């Protein structure tokens, strides 16, 4: 589904389906509205219904990604892409409203270029990046490579530093040489499996932004 280009709005890159004048049933050379002189009642044109640009979008409910209020949002999705995001009027917490950050959340995914086309936010990291020792640059890598290389380094550090007992002979079962920062930006399920990873491998230096 293409969005109609409404020539009084701003939605470039789509098909022109008619001018405003045409919708008003006239051409620009024959003004539909006689401008007024002082004291005269202004003339008005009858409204017409303009398609909403999200008319045919699928609506997905979700929760905003910033503060701890937990506002509901509606993501409007077309062809698998988010095309608009606004507050969820059914969510009793925000009843459809959003602050500037919440209203801007679309920018996390797409930005509008100078022609009004939505393009993927070019600042997003979209590939695995690796920085070698003493390098001044990132190199692009594959996921398989990264997961395996990280696992190797993790194991080497853990094996070299793991302590089963402390100096007094008491059980400690930890590595003190690895640290983990979890996140208030991630879901509960993600934090839960971080916690399991950390516990299983004996990491004790672990924290998240509650303390930062």
């Amino acid at each position, binding site marked *: 589904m293409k969005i109609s280009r*409404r*020539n*009084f*709005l*701003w*939605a*470039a890159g789509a098909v022109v389906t008619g*001018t*405003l*004048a045409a919708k*008003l049933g006239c051409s*620009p*050379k024959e*003004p*539909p*509205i006689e*401008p*007024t*002189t*002082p004291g005269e009642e*202004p*003339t*008005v*044109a*009858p*409204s*017409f*219904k*303009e*398609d*909403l*640009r999200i008319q045919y979008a699928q609506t997905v409910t979700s929760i905003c990604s910033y503060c701890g209020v937990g506002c509901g949002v509606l993501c409007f999705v077309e062809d698998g892409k988010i095309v*608009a*995001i*606004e*507050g969820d009027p059914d969510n009793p917490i*925000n009843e*459809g*409203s*959003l*602050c*500037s950050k*919440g*209203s*801007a959340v*679309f920018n996390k995914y797409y*930005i*509008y*270029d*100078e*022609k*009004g086309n*939505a393009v993927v936010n070019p600042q997003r990291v979209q590939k695995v990046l690796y920085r070698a020792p003493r390098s001044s640059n990132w190199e692009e890598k594959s996921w398989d490579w990264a997961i395996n290389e990280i696992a190797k380094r993790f194991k080497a550090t853990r094996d070299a530093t793991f302590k089963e007992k402390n100096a007094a002979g008491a059980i400690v079962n930890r590595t003190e040489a690895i640290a983990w920062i979890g996140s208030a930006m991630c879901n509960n399920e993600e934090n839960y499996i971080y916690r399991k990873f950390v516990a299983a491998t004996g990491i004790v230096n672990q924290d998240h932004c509650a303390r930062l």
Partner: protein
Amino acid sequence: MAKKVRLIDTTKCMGCKGCQVACKQWNQLPATETTFTGSYENPADFAPETWGRVKFNEYESGGKVKWNMNFSSCMHCSDPACANICPVNAIHKMDNNAVLIDKDTCIGCGLCKTACPFDIPRIGNLTGKPASWKCTFCFDRITNGKGTACATACPTGAISYGDESAKIAEAEARVAELKKRGVAGAQLYGKEELGGLGVIYVLADTPDKYKLPVNPEVALSTYVWNVALKPVKFLAAVGLTFGLIGKIAEKKETMEKAS
């Protein structure tokens, strides 16, 4: 369709800019380059890509700091000067109160900007040719039973949208309530101004404290131009455009000085 208005209750505005960004989000408007100038007010001006923005005004009154914030955008005047002056009749007043600019017809001459008592429209090349840009009252939303993007986003009810009569009644009740609570300066703005605006404000102080013109006026030359050139307006449009811009600008400046 019934006349609609936007009601801005400045006594509930916390300057979160939800409206400002929601406007950009819904209307698919790119960001502009801005700099910090010592105020939280950013963008500091309207632009072809900026149709609504939050104004901040900080001052002292009776030893107390006041920090007024309010959403600023097209007033959708009931008798829009921009539409009256437009040489190509590209600007239309709709029965639901919206003032729309037909971009295909618009030649981007800028007369509307000059005539606007609130200095709202901005000329830009967004679609590849010069045209005038401003708030559309979210015409697509309001004709589909939705509120404007700014009103929908507003957390506190500082911006709301609805039928003119109901909203004016609500605003009048709010002013009365504020007065009852000791806000002596509480007042309505937009109901009488210029014969009624499409945006009604509840203020706690005089309009200038909100960066609003105290007595907005349309330059007489706007009407002169309209009456005198009515029969040949379109034909004369392009030719006369530039000379007149100067005249009106001059006139406006004199009026502002006088006021």
